[in-house]
């Protein structure tokens, strides 16, 4: 399943509205899983997927996105602006 997968976040008080994973860029290095295990896992194709979009703090989500060696995680804020990368 190629392409981008979007996850909507409704966490109260969070400034992040959406997590997008670019599956074509994801290489399964699992840096996101290591940084935010409550948010990410690798699926059967060894691509990152979000298991809980509301579990982690904003800070942890940004750190996990920044840890990705291929910039496969895109973070969108409440106003719809891309805040990472």
């Amino acid at each position: 399943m190629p392409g981008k997968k979007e996850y909507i976040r409704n966490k109260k008080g969070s400034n992040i509205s959406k997590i997008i994973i670019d599956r074509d860029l994801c290489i399964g290095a699992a840096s996101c899983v290591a940084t935010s295990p409550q948010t990410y896992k690798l699926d059967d194709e060894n691509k990152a997927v979000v298991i809980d979009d509301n579990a982690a703090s904003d800070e942890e989500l940004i750190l996990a996105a920044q840890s990705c060696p291929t910039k496969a995680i895109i973070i969108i804020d409440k106003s719809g602006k891309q805040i990472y990368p």
Partner: protein
Amino acid sequence: MQKVKYLIIGGGIAGTTAAETIHQNDRAGSIAIVSEEPYPLYSRIMLSKHNFYLPEGENKIWLKTPDWYAKENIGFLLGRTAIGLDANKKIVRLDNGEEVEYEKLLIATGSCARKWIAPGSDKKGVFSLRVLDDAKAIKEKMKTAKKAVAIGGGFISFEICDIARQFDIDMTLILRESYYWEPILDKNEAAVVEGALAASGVKTIKNTEVSEVVGGELVEGVILKNGSRIDCDMIIAGVGVVCALDWLSGSGLKANRGILANEYLETNFPDIWAAGDVAEFDDLILEERVQLGNWLNARQQGRIAGLNMVGEKTPFLLVTSYSTAGFGITISFIGDVRPSTDRTMISRGDPGSKSRARIIIKDGEIVGATLINLIPELHLMSKLIEINFKVSGHENELADHKFDLKTLIQP
């Protein structure tokens, strides 16, 4: 002579993250990065991934644009190598004769591919993989190569064999050891990797070495120790990494395999820090001095070194890991995976299954683990390392693949 407040040697993920961190915290402080490679920051991990080897693949690796540095007011000395350090005068000498004076210095030069040497190994068609130019050359050669030989069992061989099969190149893997990645993996873990390689058509020859590379100007084959010959038009050697520290000799900077640093990544000189693959640092969680070559480690150390260079006193505290996916399996390394004589090992996993692990224990605590097809246990294993879990009395649980590791971690 150029003078900067913060001088960073090394333009990889550690050095660039440090520069970014410094700039966020000291807007007025001048920063310069010296980078041996003539490129802005790219993802080194991508050099051994499928995406890079696709047409247009090179466009997918960039993490910074060429104009980012100027926009952030970070000086960027591309294609320059540091060749000398005067730690007392606080001056770094570059290969073009230029000298740069610093107030604070970060060394984040990473590591280089260890040169594979055999008679004839200087022929055209012998490659190693560490920097972008290496990867470009390999990619170009793969377009026409028919038969290739990979030397050494490790991440590079695993990933490069996977890519070569994508190009339909006939692959033979030569191992000096008796099984794949001995002794870093255990035999059962290695069997899963070897099975995956074989299923994809990679031939593995163990317990042998290349005694000679044959051919004219170009590689035509290799002769093994037992005299047998394998024809090939390409050789890729992945025989480990070394840090280039020659330029520091005589500087008084203490080094072993890497540059010695404490938990704040400070070296024995008060204004010099080390970060990333080149740092041999005091890891407070592992309770040992260790050198780790992975992306997460390099990135986070760049951040910590940057913070400490602007005046904070933050220790490096992170259990780092690296995973790779290929041939339908995953391999993960967490923490310090060296099975040295001062450690004990516990193998985990169903002997018949393709999911295996080995846990490395030192002084009664877990310091590292290798996982095959066990990404779901990656963070649990990291957590057990982080909380200094006492193994005593839990050996059987750790060895039992049906036992849920989560129950060992207090909420």
